[in-house]
């Protein structure tokens, strides 16, 4: 599982553990058969239900906007009022889905959360930004995307792993969500490798280092 997604599941479970009225924690994934493992892990961590939208590796892959549209449909079906997502994928690092989903639903959004406090229907989210933290306040329903310092995800315990096997896992396909316009809009223009690293130099002592840094214009 994408570590940001792990943080999201963990946060949802912790909200429930803080005795907040969390009715149901639904986890969603879209991908090949193997993606089911991720849902089982999520349910072993404490989610109640999994929805697997099956997309074969050979089919065209969803783009962030496609995922957002799909999630919007799921959110409407499930009548969710809080969606927690990882801040970005770890393959293409797109970091778009959460924001797009908020836009499509017309909900508030708080991205890169490092702390989430829910009081009634008011949610306070702290996020780390350059040079400090930013605090946002919004009302449910809303979208939160998670960042690394939000929490420390638990390891699923063996008894919970076994229980997760009995939790409901709904299998769907894209055909179950009619009217989604999922056509590919992005085109990979070019992929280039970063330039090879150049070897460094060794300096004799501190003075040597300082003069080298000066020489390179770093001081």
């Amino acid at each position: 599982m994408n570590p940001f997604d792990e943080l999201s599941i963990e946060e949802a479970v912790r909200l429930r553990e803080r005795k907040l009225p969390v009715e149901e924690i639904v986890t969603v994934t879209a991908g090949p058969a193997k993606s089911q493992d991720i849902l089982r892990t999520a349910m072993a961590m404490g989610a109640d239900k999994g929805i697997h939208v099956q997309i074969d590796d050979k089919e065209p892959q969803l783009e962030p906007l496609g995922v957002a549209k799909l999630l919007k449909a799921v959110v409407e079906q499930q009548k969710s009022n809080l969606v927690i997502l990882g801040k970005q994928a770890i393959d293409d690092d797109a970091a778009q889905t959460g924001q797009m989903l908020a836009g499509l639903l017309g909900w508030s959004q708080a991205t890169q959360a490092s702390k989430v406090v829910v009081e009634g229907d008011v949610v306070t989210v702290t996020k780390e930004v350059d040079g400090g933290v930013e605090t946002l306040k919004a009302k449910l329903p809303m979208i939160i995307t998670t960042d690394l310092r939000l929490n420390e995800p638990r390891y699923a315990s063996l008894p919970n792993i076994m229980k997760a096997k009995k939790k409901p896992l709904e299998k769907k396909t894209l055909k179950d969500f009619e009217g989604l316009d999922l056509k590919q809009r992005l085109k990979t223009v070019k992929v280039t490798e970063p330039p090879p690293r150049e070897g460094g130099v060794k300096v004799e002592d501190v003075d040597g280092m300082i003069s080298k840094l000066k020489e390179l214009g770093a001081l």
Partner: protein
Amino acid sequence: MPPTLARAAIRTLTRLRCPHQPSSRHAFSTSPSRRIMELTGFTETQLTVREAVSAICSQFPSSYWQEHDASETDPKEFHAALASSGFLGIALPESLGGSGLGISEATIMMQTIAESGAGMAGAQSIHANVYATQPLARFGSKEQVEETIPKIIDGTYRTCFGVTEPDAGLDTLRLRTTAKRDGDDYVISGQKIWITCAQVASRMILLARTSPASSVPKPSQALSLFCIPLSKSSPGLELRRIKKMGGRAVDANEVFFDNYRVPASSLIGKEGHGFKIILHGMNAERCLLAGEALGLGYAALSRAASYARERNVFGRPIGQNQGIAHPLAECYMHLEAAKLATYHAARLYDASQTDESIKQDAVGIAANSAKFLAAEAAFKACERAVLAHGGMGYAVEYDVERWFRECLVPRIAPVSREMVLNFVGERVLGLPRSY
């Protein structure tokens, strides 16, 4: 970016970010380290267990085990991590907080632990908690079971297994430690040896003599099984740690009882049923040991293979030399064969719990064969791994010397190679008994 390219990129970046760090949970590594064992044929549950245990073990890198081996200190954090995730109860009933799985799953758990680099030390630190608790859960009284099992599962209690004596190893029926009933107590006197984890355990599953052999129709009826509190501060109990070749993180002891008092409620089942109860679990233990041996073997072989790929001599990787490659390939085949024998035995053991058509003799032959084959395959693999590393194989830093020292354990315990051969000679081939 195509997914395969992206994955390769992440792998490369992860390595750049932390070149010498073992993969930690949030290192963004999406690909597990290279595993050589073929996983086809395992059940979904076994694979789930393997993955979940692997995740926990990955928090305990080689350096952890090197340090604990060198300083001979108990890997208590490791035991605690497995306990808090519920793994010690893998084969204990769900009603007592366990997961109700079988020996097939417990075996792959033990293999995975050993294979993670934790080796026999890691496996032995929890072995008795997984295995010696089986007879207790099955034959103990309701109070006894409810008082101890949940605490063993959650790690509050640790347990050790007290059967072997200096003058009674494989000839268990001759053991001399006595437990005499005295009012509400039993009074224990005698000596046990090679008791793993006695220093850190608060309970011992003890086999002791409750009547002289001559006073009962069969010598096996003179022994009884107990789950006793092990309190080092109480009078009549002394532990002496044994210095040993491998698995040094985990203590092994001589245990001396001198009129050591335990409550009469410590008895498991009925007096005189001890041997029968113990026999029940022996095939299970052989399976677990076989799994642990396999883990060591695969760990060593996979390390040797990666060294042989990376180490260049005369301008090419040493693995290109057939003198290196062939022995490693042979080790792989032996391990795979032993793996099949091991999980076959475990499957038979589990099935025999409900299927009466599977005879205990068949289970015994399968379990002993598996233990033998796995131990030999592991020994070959560990030895070859040291040799493939050349001088580096002798250095602690490369781990293979530690695994090599440890891989003697499954060859010797819980039953020697020679006794397994005797058993098969007698029971399968119908040859006369030699001892």
